[in-house]
């Protein structure tokens, strides 16, 4: 697998980011001291089970965490600017223009009462000072770029006249319409057919080259991740447990959770009677287990794991793990 050369200047960096949900039953620490960085033109993947806080990271970056959630601490540095310290109006200027997002449900991400072309033009209208006719031209161009056939006519269609894959293409067009520096894709292929998934991933790969954007890809599917990402961050229960280059994570996973995740991928090469499963469930985040949060499900659990929370350490260059096995 080739690794794209990247500059060392991170375009986005989170520092001890903490986003909590304040429920009546208690506080859910959905994102607990997460530090990660995305370099210029790099594609970073965040992998984890449902409820591990990966989507909350994405929403926190755009400051779109829903009630009763709140970002309680940390820093989000985007191009050197702390996004948590700027006003809502300044944040709006960044959303859609410099950071854009693609969502999980393409068909419900489009407003049923407007034509696709009209909606794709929204970001252009919001962020760029262009004439009405020019917006239409731009929308048509970008829809053609994401592979909508006869874009000029189909932009006048309503979302229900589009297939799921086409809706996702339109969403990507909308996100890219202002040439953002960072594209956040929250499970962009989860609700699509496998063949359409492949097409969308191909499209994202091609567009990444064309637009020179960094990508933050959220997902649970290592297969999807391996198609697009340069680096992988594995999250478990609101915390980063391992991060490293794609090839490092695949060939030399260190954390027992990452290993288990990789073993649970179905493979056509290896004969196996049953697919490997990780026993247990993601722990409730209101009262997470003491010590290492993965210890109740871990194969290599030690006495110490139940008491000490492992800090994240670098085991080799660019490969960090939070596990007591390597301390």
């Amino acid at each position: 697998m080739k690794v794209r050369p990247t500059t060392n200047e991170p375009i986005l960096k989170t520092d001890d980011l903490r986003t909590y949900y304040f429920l009546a039953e208690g506080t859910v620490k959905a994102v607990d001291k997460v530090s990660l960085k995305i370099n210029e033109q790099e594609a970073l993947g965040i992998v984890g089970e449902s409820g591990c806080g990966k989507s909350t990271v994405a929403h926190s970056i755009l400051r779109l965490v829903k009630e009763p959630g709140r970002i309680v601490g940390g820093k989000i540095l985007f191009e050197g600017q702390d996004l948590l310290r700027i006003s809502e109006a300044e944040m709006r200027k960044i959303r859609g223009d410099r950071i854009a997002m693609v969502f999980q449900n393409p068909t419900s991400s489009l407003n049923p009462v407007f034509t696709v072309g009209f909606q794709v033009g929204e970001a252009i209208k919001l962020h760029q000072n262009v004439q009405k006719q020019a917006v239409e031209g731009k929308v048509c161009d970008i829809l053609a770029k994401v592979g909508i056939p006869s874009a000029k006519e189909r932009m006048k269609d309503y979302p229900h006249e589009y297939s799921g894959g086409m809706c996702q293409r339109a969403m990507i067009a909308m996100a890219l319409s202002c040439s953002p520096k960072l594209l956040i894709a929250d499970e962009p292929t989860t609700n699509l057919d496998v063949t359409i998934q492949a097409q969308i991933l191909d499209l994202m790969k091609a567009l990444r080259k064309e637009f020179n954007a960094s990508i933050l890809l959220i997902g649970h599917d290592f297969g999807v991740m391996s198609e697009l990402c340069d680096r992988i961050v594995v999250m478990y229960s609101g915390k980063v447990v391992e991060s490293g280059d794609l090839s490092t994570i695949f060939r030399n996973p260190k954390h027992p959770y990452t290993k288990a995740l990789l073993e649970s991928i179905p493979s056509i090469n290896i004969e196996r009677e049953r697919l490997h499963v990780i026993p247990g469930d993601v722990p409730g985040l209101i009262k997470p287990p003491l010590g290492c949060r993965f210890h109740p499900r871990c194969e290599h659990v030690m006495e110490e794991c139940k008491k000490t929370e492992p800090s994240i350490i670098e085991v080799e260059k660019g490969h960090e793990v939070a596990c007591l096995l390597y301390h």
Partner: protein
Amino acid sequence: MNSQLRRTPEKKKEKVHRPSRATRIFVVWRKLRKSTLAIAGLFIVVFMSAVALLAPVIAPYGLLPSGSPVEPPSMEHVFGTDVTGRDMLSLVMYGARISVYVGIAAVLIELVIGIGIGMIAGYFGGIIDEILMRITDVFFSLPILMMLLVAVSMFEVRSINTIILVMGVLEWPFMARVVRSGYLSLREETYVEAAKSMGASSWRIMLRHILPNILSVIIVLATMDIPWFILYEATLTFLGFGDPMSSSWGILLENGFPHMRTSWWVITFPGLALLITSLGFNLLGDGLRDALDIKVRE
């Protein structure tokens, strides 16, 4: 994943066979046309509006006495004449102007307040919602007719516009509740989130992205509220709290009431006009509810 599955979308220009471009309004019209009652309602509404607009042109006489007092219906005065010798048909026609104007103007006020409050309460939620909805509850619990009487009698000069204003200001709570519930559920939609992620402001999302999605409910509600306003105005006027200078149907009823036993036509025709108009708006509203609802199939 198998690389054979990959195929970038074909670039060749394909011929798209598309059905005739039925716009939303056309679809609604097609559904509306199926219901005889709705069409009857639409006909009444259009007819009454036309009469109201064209009253000065089509009314056989003006608003001045044109015959002897209390003449029964005849070829000259189809609806008879009133106590001062004015032509009833002309009076009813001019009355339509007032009534239709009252209905539409009061509904516009109701819409502005109701949508405004419902939208803000439903979209922002939390403490804002709580405060606005408790205010709404207070307005909702007031006996409307009595409040109208009290409010109208506070004005020394009762013009038709003060009556409209008072009705609009007192009648918005139901609209606000309906609008709020719409916003409450639609604000959770992914397309709202997507709009936010594109950098749209709260106001833009409320007015541009969500409002069109609940417009059909609002249209139906507004259509069905118009007859209420017309009836309230007539009631107020009949009870002597109206604008004595206007020639609304309520005034005609009030003036004709003492002569009801001897000359039936002085109150029957304005009464019928009131009944038919209110029926028309209600039928149209009912039909629109079905026609605008995408769940009700053609």
